[in-house]
C-alpha cells in the first residue's frame, strides 16, 4: 500500500436532494404519491443556522444538493483531493419500510447520476450505498446492485436502530458488505420517527445536550457487536462510525476489557479480549466536538487505544458543524496529521478504490 501518496481525503461530506419535488421525480408510484417527513424535520435543532454559511444553493435548493457548488467548496477552496459523499435522509425512520427502501433506492440513483457519473467533479467524488436496516432483503439487493460501481466506496446505515448491530438479524448485511469488499459507514439519520428515545432517559431538553450526546450512540452498537462475535463471523468487516465521538472509545474499551474479560466464558463465539477486535475493524470520522481541543497532550490522547490509526478527517459539509483541517490540534505529530487527513482513509477504502478514474 502506498501511504505516501499524499492524498487529502474528506471522509464525510453530506449531500441532499434539492427539495421534495426533486426526490419525488426519482420515485415510482405508488410511493411517489405517499407522504413522509421532510429531511430537516426534528424537535432538536440548533438555534441559528443549521447549515454553514456559504453552503446555500440558489433558488432555495437544499444545501449540499449542487455538485458544482459543493465541489468548488471541497476541492477548490479547501484543497481536498477526494470527498466521500454520504447522502442524508430520514428514510430509515419511516414506519413503512417499503417507503424507506424506495427513498434510499432513489437516493442512490440520484447520487450516482448527478454526482459520480456527471459533472466536472465526478472523478473526485466517491459515494455511499444507502440501505435500510428495516428491510434486510432489500438492503442486500441494493448492495448487490451497486457494489461494482467504480465510485461507490462504502455502505451507509443509520446510527439509530430498533436493535443494536450485534444482533444476528443484521448478519446478511455484513455478509453482503464483506462480499462486496466495502466498509460500512454508520451515520446519524436525520429527523425522528421509529427510533427509540435518543438517550436512555428520554428526549433531551436542549439541542446542546442532544447534539453532543447522539454521536456517542456508537458505543452501544460497538459494545454489542464485540461480544456477539460479529468480527469473528465476518473477519473482513470494517465499520466506520461517521459521527465522531471516537474519544469515548478509550474509557469504554478500558472498561470493556477490565469488566468484560471475566465474562468471556459466556461468549465462546467471541473469545478474544474486547479491544482485540478494534483495529482493522473500526474507524471513526473526526468531528468538530472531538478531542481535547488544542491541549498539549492531544497527540498522546490520539495515540491511546490506537485512535490515531482509526480516525479520518470528515468535514460534515454543509452542516453547521463544518470542520476544517485548521481545526485539528496543533499538538498532533506530523505523522498523526497525515494519517487522519488521508492515510487512514486509504487503509479503509483501498488506494485503488480512491484513485481509480
Amino acid at each position, binding site marked *: 500500500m502506498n501511504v505516501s501518496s499524499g492524498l487529502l481525503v474528506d471522509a464525510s461530506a453530506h449531500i441532499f436532494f434539492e427539495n421534495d419535488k426533486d426526490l419525488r421525480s426519482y420515485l415510482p408510484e405508488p410511493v411517489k404519491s405517499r407522504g413522509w417527513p421532510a429531511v430537516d424535520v426534528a424537535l432538536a435543532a*440548533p*438555534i*441559528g443556522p443549521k447549515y454553514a454559511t456559504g453552503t446555500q444553493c440558489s433558488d432555495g435548493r437544499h444545501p449540499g444538493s449542487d455538485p458544482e457548488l459543493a465541489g468548488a467548496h471541497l476541492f477548490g477552496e479547501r484543497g481536498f483531493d477526494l470527498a466521500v459523499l454520504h447522502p442524508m435522509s430520514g428514510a430509515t425512520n419511516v414506519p413503512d419500510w417499503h417507503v424507506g427502501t424506495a427513498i434510499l433506492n432513489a437516493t442512490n440513483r440520484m447520487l450516482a447520476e448527478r454526482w459520480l457519473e456527471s459533472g466536472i467533479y465526478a472523478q473526485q467524488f466517491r459515494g455511499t450505498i444507502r440501505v435500510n436496516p428495516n428491510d434486510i432483503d432489500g438492503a442486500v439487493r441494493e448492495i448487490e446492485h451497486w457494489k461494482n460501481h467504480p465510485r461507490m466506496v462504502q455502505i451507509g446505515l443509520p*446510527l439509530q*436502530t*430498533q*436493535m*443494536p448491530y*450485534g*444482533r444476528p438479524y443484521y448478519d446478511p448485511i455484513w455478509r453482503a458488505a464483506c462480499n462486496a469488499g466495502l466498509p460500512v459507514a454508520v451515520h446519524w439519520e436525520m429527523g425522528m420517527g421509529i427510533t*427509540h428515545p435518543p*438517550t*436512555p*432517559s428520554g428526549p*433531551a*431538553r*436542549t439541542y*446542546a*445536550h442532544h*447534539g*453532543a*450526546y447522539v454521536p*456517542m*450512540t456508537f*458505543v*452501544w*452498537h460497538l*459494545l*454489542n457487536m*464485540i*461480544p*456477539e462475535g460479529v468480527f469473528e463471523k465476518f473477519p473482513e468487516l470494517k465499520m466506520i462510525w461517521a459521527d465522531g465521538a471516537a*474519544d*469515548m472509545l*478509550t*474509557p*469504554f474499551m*478500558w*472498561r*470493556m*476489557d*477490565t*469488566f*468484560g*474479560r*471475566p*465474562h*468471556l*466464558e*459466556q*461468549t465462546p463465539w467471541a473469545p478474544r479480549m474486547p479491544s482485540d477486535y478494534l483495529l482493522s475493524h473500526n474507524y471513526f470520522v473526526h468531528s468538530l*466536538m*472531538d478531542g*481535547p*481541543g488544542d*491541549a498539549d*497532550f492531544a497527540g*498522546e490522547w490520539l495515540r*491511546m487505544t490506537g485512535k490515531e490509526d482509526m480516525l479520518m478527517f470528515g468535514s460534515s459539509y454543509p452542516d453547521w*458543524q463544518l470542520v476544517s483541517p485548521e481545526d485539528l490540534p496543533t499538538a498532533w505529530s506530523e505523522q498523526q496529521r497525515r494519517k487522519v487527513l488521508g492515510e487512514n482513509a486509504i487503509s479503509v477504502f483501498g488506494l485503488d478504490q480512491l484513485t481509480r478514474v
Partner: protein
Amino acid sequence: MTIALNRHHATFDLATTTPVRVVDTDVHPSPKFGELAPFIPEPFRTRFAKRGEGAGSGVYYDAPDFAHAMAMRVDSYPDDGNFAGSDPDLLFQQLIMEAGSDIAILGPTNGSPGQTEEEVHALAVATNLWQDECWLSTEVNWHRRFRGSIVAAIEDPAAAAREIETWAGHEYFSQVLINAEMRPAWGDPRYDVVWAAAARHDIPVACHLSRGRYNELPMSPVGFMTYNHDLMVSYSMLAANQVMSLIFDGVFDRFPTLKIVFIEHAFNWILPLMWRMDAMYAKHGVPETGLKRKPSDYVKSNIWFTTQPLDYPEDKLELTNALEWMEADKVLLFSSDYPHWTFDDPRWVAKHMPEHMREAIMFQNAIELFHLPKEVPALPGQKRALGVITYISRGTENDARGVLARFGVSGTVVRTIESDEEVFTVSLSQETRGQVAESRLHTALEAALNAEVRIISA
C-alpha cells in the same frame, strides 16, 4: 469472635480516636430474610409478600458464575444462610477491620423494585426505617463506622422531598440515594423539589447503577443489550446523559450548592465528556442554555464519581495521565462495592492514584462532602489501608495455590515486582490449560491476589 464482645460498647474505649484515612462510598447492606417486611406500610407489605410467593431469581443480565456466586464475593455470605451483606458484624469484620475502610457509607439497593411510584416510595420508607434500626442503632453501629442513605423515590418527587425532610439531620444518614433510570432525565424541573430539599439540608444526592425493574430493563437508544457486560459497560452512557441533563438544563444554576454523586457508573468517560460538552457549549450552548459557567466547571464543583469499578488499560501510565487530565482529585471518591464480586480493595485503588491526589480521593473529598468526622474511635487490630502506603498485595503465593486447588489444577506460582507493580506468573501445563476456563481462573486469581496475573504454559 472478639467483635461480638465489642458490640457492648461499654467495654469499648470510644475516647481513643484515630484519623479517618479511607472512606468507602459504595457498600451494600441487605436485609436478612423477613427483616424488611415489618417496616413496609400496608397495603404494600401484603402485596409484595404475595408477589414474592414462589418467585425465584429475578436476574436477566447475569454476572460470571451467577449460579454459584450470585454476583457476590463468595466469602461474604454469612453462615446463617442469609444473603451477602446481611450481617452487620461480618460486614464490619471484612470491610472495616480486614480491608481497612474506616467509614462505610451504606447504599442499600433493595429499594428500587416496584411497579408504581407508590410502591417504590413504600420501599424507600421501609428501607430507611430498616437502616435506622438494623444498621445505624447504637447497638449495631457501636463503632460509629457506618453511615446510611436516605433512600428517596425520585419517581415521586414530592414524596422523595418529604422523605428527605423526615431524615435530614439524622446523625448517621450521610446522603440521599435515588434510582438512576427515571425518565425524563434529571434536568426536568419536575425534580427541582428534590434538589431543593437536598440543597436546603446540604446533603449530597447519590444514585447507584441499577437494573431498572421500575422501567423494566434499561434500554439504550438502539434497543436492549444482549449480555451482562455490554449492558454494564454501556450503562455509563446513562450516567453521562444525566450529567449532561443536569448541566445543560441548568440544575446547578438553580441549585448552586447541590452535590451529585454517581456510584458505580465508572468515571474515565467524564474526561472526554467534559471536552465534548465544553466544545458544544462554545459553539452552540450559550444563547440556548444561558449557563453561567462552562460545563466542565460544573462537573468539578458539583459532581463526584466513585472509584469502583477502576478500569485500566494495559499500559497503566495511560490511566495515570487520564487521572491528571481530568483532575481526579476534584471528582473522585474511593469505593469498594463490598460485597459484590467486583470488590476493589482500598490499598489496591490507592496505589493506582497519583500520589498527590491519593489523600483527596481516599478520604478528604468524602469527609468534606458528607460532613464526616476527621477522627473516629480507634479499633484495636484494624488494618490501616492508608498511612504508610504499602505495595504488598493482599494475596500471597499460597493464596494463588489455593485458588488453583479450588479449580482442581496445580501449577507453579512466581511473584515478582515490575515497576512497583506486583505480578503473579502462574505456569500451567499445556494439558491443564485446555481443561480449565482460563478467564474464570484468571479472574479468581486476580480477585484473591489484587495484583496482575499472567497465566503461561509451563
